[in-house]
């Protein structure tokens, strides 16, 4: 049984849980069973069917309701006398300020995105409250402890940014199926069904346009009474036929690459099929837009099947037709949603046809949906294990049992017969801009880049600030807030559109900017350096932020743009494909030599994706400095072998 000390620490603790999903459900249950009596839980999501395979506090009948609220009710059923306060809200809301966080003894994260994790990290640092972080993906999981001043904060080791691809790979030289999916989803689908005025890299010119683009006829514009099927075939031929021929005309591109082949309707679908396609379409009698689907009328039932080029083409044309005939009102407003069956069918078909053209293996709807929807695979058991570990660490934290804090990694395959790998936490990173206020450097063209670019790409995206304040000396260049005067708002709006050197307080090379987020209580200094040119391919943002330890490359592949300096990636708006939506797992083993306690063998392994943790574990085996649990001992005794 737990010791008297442990029990009293548990009984008196006030705990904040952020997230009531996969980890959250297991965690709330375990906390309740372990004797915790005052639990607060925040989650902004509602329950979906795909949650039910692991978020066991929820039932089919709860679909659509608040996760935090339903989780609370479910746990009170078997522990009616404890206090659970639920918040159906976004943890980034202003009500969850530093004072709010200060009321807790420990914060436990069960989040599914990097952005919220960074935000909570900063609030915990500002409030001086310990944070236990966690994440799972399939059979992999991890739990980490972050105590201000004693251990690294969550951001001491930079986390890899969402995976992105260079524009040209997507628009011209795909080599993997994922490139085709990004093309189908972010370019083609967006162009056909999304907002009309959005920037889009898809080549939209018809063959009538002269090269000087004086007569640009947008092929994607559907004329008022243009026959839907004919329109569909026109689009098909344009993107899979004409555009490919256009690309082929540039010899240089294909010197060292396999040439794609153009695909036209008439080649794939002989005329009878085209007519049949039209006749067989079954109309959805219910008027339920979400059930409109191309597959049934084509006799395709199993989402795991691989479709032939012909079948993919049929799905493409049928889906396009259904969008225009059954869901016309939504066109111009649609964004891709993985739970939108017709959208998934369209994107799958389009990606497959493109893949076929480029000699890339085709994939099933099930696989394509996973890629397009950034679906993270998940099972109940890993979450249960991780939840158990979180509570174990939380109890240590409540007792200030510093020496015994552990970062624990749950492996997919045993390493040295162990499935759980505990590691001692590291000391704070002295050059972490979040917990140790180190200044950063920004290279930017101060005559070309606008303040808006700085705010969007650096302050929000890279620095993760939510409600930023930007100052140059004593001059306020920009701020956000509810309590601003009209003229202030107008002033800031105007500033956003100015290039940096034209701001009321000009920002040029040598300027030091102070950037703050009052809610996160994070303050940051940025030294500005003017630079004229940036490489469009590798530095598409046109600005580079540096000053912390380099984030590990997500993929060791020349095609990615994650290798420059410390800028985590060159993001192209049209082509970003985030991989960290649900239950994300961040395993970082960035090595900075001196502070890292593991041996040199492991220090060259910079792995940041779950699949690579296995390799790391193997390397760690040979190391004498890893803390290991003795077989048969309780968690509190350990042996640490001397180097």
């Amino acid at each position, binding site marked *: *049984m737990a010791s008297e000390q442990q029990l009293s620490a548990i009984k008196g603790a006030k705990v904040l849980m952020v997230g009531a999903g996969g980890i959250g459900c297991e965690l709330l*249950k375990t906390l*309740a*069973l372990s004797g915790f009596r005052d639990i607060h839980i925040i989650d902004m999501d509602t329950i979906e*069917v*795909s949650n*039910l*395979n*692991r978020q*066991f506090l929820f*039932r*089919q009948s709860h679909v659509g309701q608040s996760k935090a609220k339903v989780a609370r009710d479910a*746990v009170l*059923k*078997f*522990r*009616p006398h404890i206090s659970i306060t639920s918040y159906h809200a976004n943890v980034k809301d202003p009500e969850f300020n530093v004072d709010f966080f200060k009321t807790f003894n420990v914060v436990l994260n069960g989040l599914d995105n990097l952005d919220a994790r960074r935000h909570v990290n900063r609030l915990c640092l500002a409030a001086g409250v310990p944070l236990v972080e966690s994440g799972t993906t*399939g*059979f992999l999981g991890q739990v980490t402890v972050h105590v201000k001043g004693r251990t690294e904060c969550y951001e001491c080791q930079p986390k890899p940014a969402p995976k992105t691809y260079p524009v040209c790979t997507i628009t011209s030289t795909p080599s993997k199926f994922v490139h085709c999916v990004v093309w189908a989803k972010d370019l083609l689908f967006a162009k056909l069904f999304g907002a009309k005025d959005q920037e889009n890299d898809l080549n939209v010119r018809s063959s009538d346009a002269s090269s000087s683009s004086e007569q640009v006829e947008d092929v994607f514009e559907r004329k008022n009474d243009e026959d839907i099927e004919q329109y569909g075939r026109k689009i098909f031929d344009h993107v899979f036929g004409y555009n490919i021929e256009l690309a082929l005309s540039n010899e240089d591109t294909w010197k060292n690459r396999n040439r794609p082949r153009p695909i036209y309707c008439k080649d794939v679908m002989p005329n009878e099929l085209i007519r049949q396609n039209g006749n067989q379409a079954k109309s959805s009698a219910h008027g339920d837009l979400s059930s409109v689907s191309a597959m049934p009328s084509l006799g395709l*039932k*199993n*989402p*795991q099947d691989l479709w032939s080029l012909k079948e993919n083409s049929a799905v493409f044309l049928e889906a396009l037709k259904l969008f225009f005939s059954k869901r016309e009102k939504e066109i111009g407003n649609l964004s891709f949603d993985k739970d939108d069956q017709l959208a998934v069918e369209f994107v799958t078909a389009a990606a497959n046809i493109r893949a076929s053209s480029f000699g890339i293996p085709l994939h099933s709807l*099930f696989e394509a949906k*996973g890629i397009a929807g950034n*679906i*993270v*695979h*998940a*099972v*109940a*058991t890993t979450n*249960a294990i991780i939840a158990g570990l979180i509570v174990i660490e939380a109890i240590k934290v409540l007792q200030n049992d510093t020496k015994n804090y552990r970062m624990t990694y749950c492996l997919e395959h045993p390493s040295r017969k162990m499935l759980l790998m505990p590691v001692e936490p590291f000391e704070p990173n002295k050059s972490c801009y979040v917990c140790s206020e180190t200044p950063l450097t920004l290279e930017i063209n101060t005559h070309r880049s606008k303040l808006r670019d700085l705010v969007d790409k650096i302050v929000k995206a890279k620095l993760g600030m939510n409600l930023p304040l930007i100052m140059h000396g004593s001059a306020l260049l920009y701020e956000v807030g509810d309590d601003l005067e009209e003229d202030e708002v107008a002033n800031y709006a105007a500033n956003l559109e100015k290039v940096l050197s034209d701001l009321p307080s000009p920002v040029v090379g040598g300027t030091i900017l102070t950037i703050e987020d009052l809610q996160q209580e994070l303050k940051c200094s940025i030294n500005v350096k003017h630079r004229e040119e940036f490489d469009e391919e590798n530095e598409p943002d046109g600005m580079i932020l540096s000053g912390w330890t380099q984030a590990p490359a997500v993929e060791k592949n020349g095609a990615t743009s994650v290798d420059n300096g410390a800028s985590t990636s060159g993001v192209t708006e049209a082509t970003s494909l985030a991989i960290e939506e649900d239950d994300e797992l961040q395993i970082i083993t960035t090595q900075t030599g001196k502070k890292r306690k593991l041996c040199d063998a492991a220090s060259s392994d910079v792995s940041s994706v779950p699949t690579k943790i296995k390799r790391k574990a193997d390397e760690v085996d040979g190391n004498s400095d890893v803390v290991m649990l003795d077989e*048969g001992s*309780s*968690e509190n005794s350990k042996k640490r072998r001397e180097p």
Partner: protein
Amino acid sequence: MDGEELTEHETALYDRQIRVWGADAQRRLSKSHILVSGLKGTVIEFCKNIVLAGVGSVTLIDDRLVTEDLLAANFLIPADENVYAGKSLAELCSDSLKDFNPMVRVSVEKGELSSFSVDFFDKFDVVVLSSCSRSTKQSVNEKCRKLLKRVAFYTVDCRDSCGEIFVDLQNYIYSKVK
């Protein structure tokens, strides 16, 4: 579920886990039958996990009535005496588990574990025992091994922060993919 293909509902419900272990494993799970005896602590966790996973059926054995101690690590039993009075642990857990996943057939078997015949165990693919004597475990294990078909046998016990799992898969062939 009967039939070779997973139904549309199963595909939607099990999507995330199918992405972990594949549709074939899911199909095989849905045809498996599990016997569980000794409903406390770790075994309760197991029941939750295996039901969520979409196994074919789970049969529960535990005639014990609810006590404070048994409630302690059991989140399947509502803390309402009106509900749990008079019912065995197995009956109460069965009610809850059915709720977790209506597609799994959950049932209760009454009686002493050691009194069941060899034929009884033939109905199952997996047997999980806990909270019983060593001789009971041995006797059940022997009965399972007498059957022609392979019945996987597990015992689970947990005390404080020590746990033990015993596994007998008899002849078990598997392949490792590098």
